[in-house]
């Protein structure tokens, strides 16, 4: 984790607290998407999104953010070396107002290199 990346995030999200603006500590949502695999441009889907190697091919293509639930154990600071582990916790269908939806639930575990737990995230993505 670098101070520079934390400051960029703090500017983009218009943080007001000095500890975030200076990059002394990362804001609570800073690690959102940090588990995303980094792939070359020609490996992106036509909508721009990354093909998720954990997912089977789904019959619905359009992706929406669903929400998260995070549990925090200690703040993220510049200089931290973090290990993120991502798993698929659940996949289920629902009938939405405008058609069928598929919910994909991810679990993300964030630890230090020594195995100290930093944060746990449960994240929902919706395919429509």
């Amino acid at each position, binding site marked *: 984790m670098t101070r520079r*990346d934390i400051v*960029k*995030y703090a*500017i*983009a*999200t*218009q*943080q*007001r*607290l000095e*500890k*975030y603006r200076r990059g002394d500590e990362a*804001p*609570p*949502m800073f690690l*959102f*998407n940090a588990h*995303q695999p*980094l792939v070359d441009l020609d490996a*992106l889907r036509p*909508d*721009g*999104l*990354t093909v998720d190697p954990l997912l089977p091919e789904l019959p619905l293509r*359009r*992706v*929406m*953010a*669903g*929400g*998260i*639930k*995070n*549990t*925090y154990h200690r703040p993220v600071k510049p200089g931290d070396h973090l290990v993120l582990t991502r798993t698929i916790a659940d996949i289920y269908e629902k009938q939405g107002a405008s058609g069928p939806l598929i919910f994909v639930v991810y679990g993300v575990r964030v630890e230090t290199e020594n195995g100290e737990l930093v944060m746990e995230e449960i994240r*929902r993505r919706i395919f429509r």
Partner: protein
Amino acid sequence: MPRLSTVTVGTELDERTHETSMVSLFLYNAAVWNPHRIHFDAEYTTQVEKHPNIVVDGPLQGDWLSQVVTEWLGEDGDLVEFEYSNRRAAYLGERLRAGGEVVEIDQQAGTVTLQLYIKNADDAVIAPGRALVRLPG
């Protein structure tokens, strides 16, 4: 700076208004490395994904909810749990309000539960949230 000894159920947290611009959305998506075209490509967004306009990221609204909490806590207190759901989409340039209130106090555990919201111009809650925080006595 809120204290466990003085906080009461129903205390409202300061509301803050957010209005996105093409530049603010671009920088947010660059910071989280999100190349989804509905956040920067208007023609694709309206013609292919059939949205009325460029879409405001769900997790950006989540961040605004977290800021309602962190600004209330200031340098004291810890965020323990935080969650939200993106219920309805919001679009570029919309005026959105982020706020919340204290709904539960657990003196023994030293924790307070906050209910949070993002509301649009119609006063509809488009992203409800909840946070559990630990306060100093």
